C-alpha cells in the first residue's frame, strides 16, 4: 500500500506505566474511511492505544501520524492533534453542568471559535443525526445512558474530526440501549468516517469492521478481515479469547 493513502499510522509505538508495558511495539496503518475494531482481554492495551492516539497518554517510543500531523515524544502541540481526533468514552463524560446544546456548543465556540449561531446550527444538525433533537435543552442527568452516549458522539463530531475513537462505548449501557448507539456508529461508518473501535460487541465487529485486530499484552497478535479473525483465528490466544466472549 502506498504511503499517501495511509491515514492513521503507528510505528513501533510503546507506552509504559511504570514497569508495565501497556503498548509494546505496535505498528498499524489505517486507511481513510476504514473501520478497525480492536478486541482483546482486559489489560491488553486496547484503551491505551486509543488514548495514545488522542495524546491523552504520552508515548515513550515510536511515532504516530494522523493525516499529516506527527505525534511523537517531542510533539508539543497536542491540542492540534486532539482537534483532528474525536473520542467517545465508556463513561460518557458529558459535562453535567451544561445542557445538551451547550455540551456540543462549548468546544466549537472556545476551540473552533465558531459564533453561537453557527455552533448551534451544527449542534442541531448533529442532534438530528443521532435522533435527539427533542433533548436539546435537557441536562445530562435527565438522559438515559444510550442518549448520553449519543450526545457524546454528537459532541465529538461537532469538531469535524478526521478520525473517531470509540473506547468501549457500549460497555456501560443497559442491553436495550446498546443498539441505538451502535446504529449511530454504523451510520457514521457508512458515511466514510475513519474509526477505531474498542468493543466487546462481536456482532458489530463482524458486520461493520473492515479489519479486526486482536491485542494482547500490548502487542498486536493478529489482524485481518473479521471473517478471518472471528471465524478462523490463527493465534491460540485469539482462539481462547473468542471462545470466552462468543
Amino acid at each position, binding site marked *: 500500500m502506498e504511503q499517501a493513502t495511509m491515514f492513521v499510522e503507528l510505528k513501533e509505538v510503546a507506552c509504559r506505566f511504570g514497569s508495565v508495558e501497556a503498548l509494546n511495539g505496535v505498528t498499524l496503518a489505517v486507511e481513510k474511511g476504514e473501520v478497525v475494531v480492536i478486541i482483546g482481554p482486559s489489560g491488553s492495551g486496547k484503551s491505551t492505544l486509543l488514548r495514545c492516539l*488522542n495524546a*491523552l497518554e504520552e508515548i515513550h517510543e515510536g511515532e504516530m501520524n494522523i493525516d499529516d500531523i506527527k505525534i511523537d515524544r517531542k510533539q508539543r502541540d497536542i*491540542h*492540534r492533534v*486532539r*482537534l483532528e*481526533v*474525536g*473520542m467517545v*468514552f465508556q*463513561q460518557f*463524560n*458529558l*459535562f*453535567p*453542568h451544561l445542557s445538551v446544546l451547550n455540551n456540543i456548543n*462549548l*468546544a466549537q465556540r*472556545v*476551540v*473552533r471559535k465558531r459564533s453561537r449561531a453557527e455552533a448551534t446550527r451544527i449542534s442541531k444538525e448533529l442532534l438530528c443525526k443521532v435522533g435527539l433533537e427533542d433533548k436539546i435543552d435537557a*441536562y*445530562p*442527568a*435527565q438522559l438515559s445512558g444510550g442518549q448520553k452516549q449519543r450526545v*457524546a458522539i454528537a*459532541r*465529538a463530531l461537532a*469538531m469535524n474530526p478526521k478520525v473517531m475513537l470509540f473506547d468501549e462505548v457500549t460497555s456501560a449501557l443497559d442491553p436495550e440501549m446498546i443498539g441505538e448507539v451502535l446504529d449511530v456508529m454504523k451510520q457514521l461508518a457508512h458515511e466514510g468516517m475513519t474509526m477505531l473501535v474498542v468493543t466487546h460487541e462481536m456482532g458489530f465487529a463482524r458486520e461493520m469492521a473492515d479489519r479486526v485486530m486482536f491485542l494482547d499484552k500490548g502487542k498486536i497478535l493478529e489482524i485481518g478481515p473479521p471473517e478471518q479473525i472471528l471465524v478462523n483465528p490463527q493465534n491460540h490466544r485469539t482462539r481462547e479469547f473468542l471462545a470466552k466472549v462468543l
Partner: protein
Amino acid sequence: MTEWGITLNLSILTSQVVLVIIYHKIGTSMPWLCEQLKILSTIFFYLIQAVHWTIAISVLAYLIALFLGLVFGVARICSNRAIQWIAGAYINVLRGIPLLVLIFFFYFGLGKFINLDRFVAGVLAVGVCYGAYMAEIFRSGIEAIDYGQHEAAMSLGMTRWQTLRHIILPQSFRIVVPPCANEFIACLKDSSLVSIIGLRELTRAGREHASETFLDFHTWVVVGAIYLVMTLSLTRLVHYLEKRAAVHGYGASHDVR
C-alpha cells in the same frame, strides 16, 4: 454611604418608637421585664452603630480571601513545580500562624516600615489568613471533579486553561459553596479579633460599653445576639444561592436547612 446612613438612622428611630410603645403597654404589668428590655435595647442601639465596621472588615477580607484562595488553589494543582511550591508554602505558612499573631504582625510589625491604617491592616491580616483556608477548599473542589471531565474536555481540543475555566471551575464552585459559606461565617466571627488593635468594631464597642456601664452581662448578650443574627441571615442567603446555582439532577440538590 450617607444615604444608607440616613435610612439606617430612620429605621432605628422608627423601631425605637415602636419599642417605647411596647414598653408602655407591658411596663405596667411586668416592670422587671420592661426594665431589662429597656437596658438591652439601649445597648443594642448603641452597639449597632459599630456593626458596619464588622461587616466592612469581614466582607473585604473575604473578597481578598476568595481571590487569593482561587489563585493559590489553582496554583497548587498547576503542573509547574515552582508555582506549586509557592502555593503550598503560602497555604502552610499562613494556615499555621494564629490569626491574632497575623493581625499584630500586619499592624505593629509592618507598622515599623509602612504606616498601615488599623482597618487596612486588619482586613489584610484576616484576608491572607482566610485565603489560605480558601485555597485548600478550592483545591479540593477542583480535585473532586472526575478526571474523565478533564479528558473529555482535552479530547475536544481544549487547553488546560479552557478546561479549567469552562468545565472544572463551574462544577467545583457548586461543590465549594457550603464550605465557602462556612469560611465566611468564621471570617465574620474572627473579625472580632481586629478589635485588639483598637478598631472600634462590634466587639470593641461592646468592651468599651461594658467597662463604662458595668453592664457586662447585658452587653455581651447583645453582642452575641448581633453576631448570631448576622450569621443566621448569611446561612439563609447561602441556602438561597445554592438553590439558584443548582442544575437539575446534579450536585447538592437536597433541601438542607
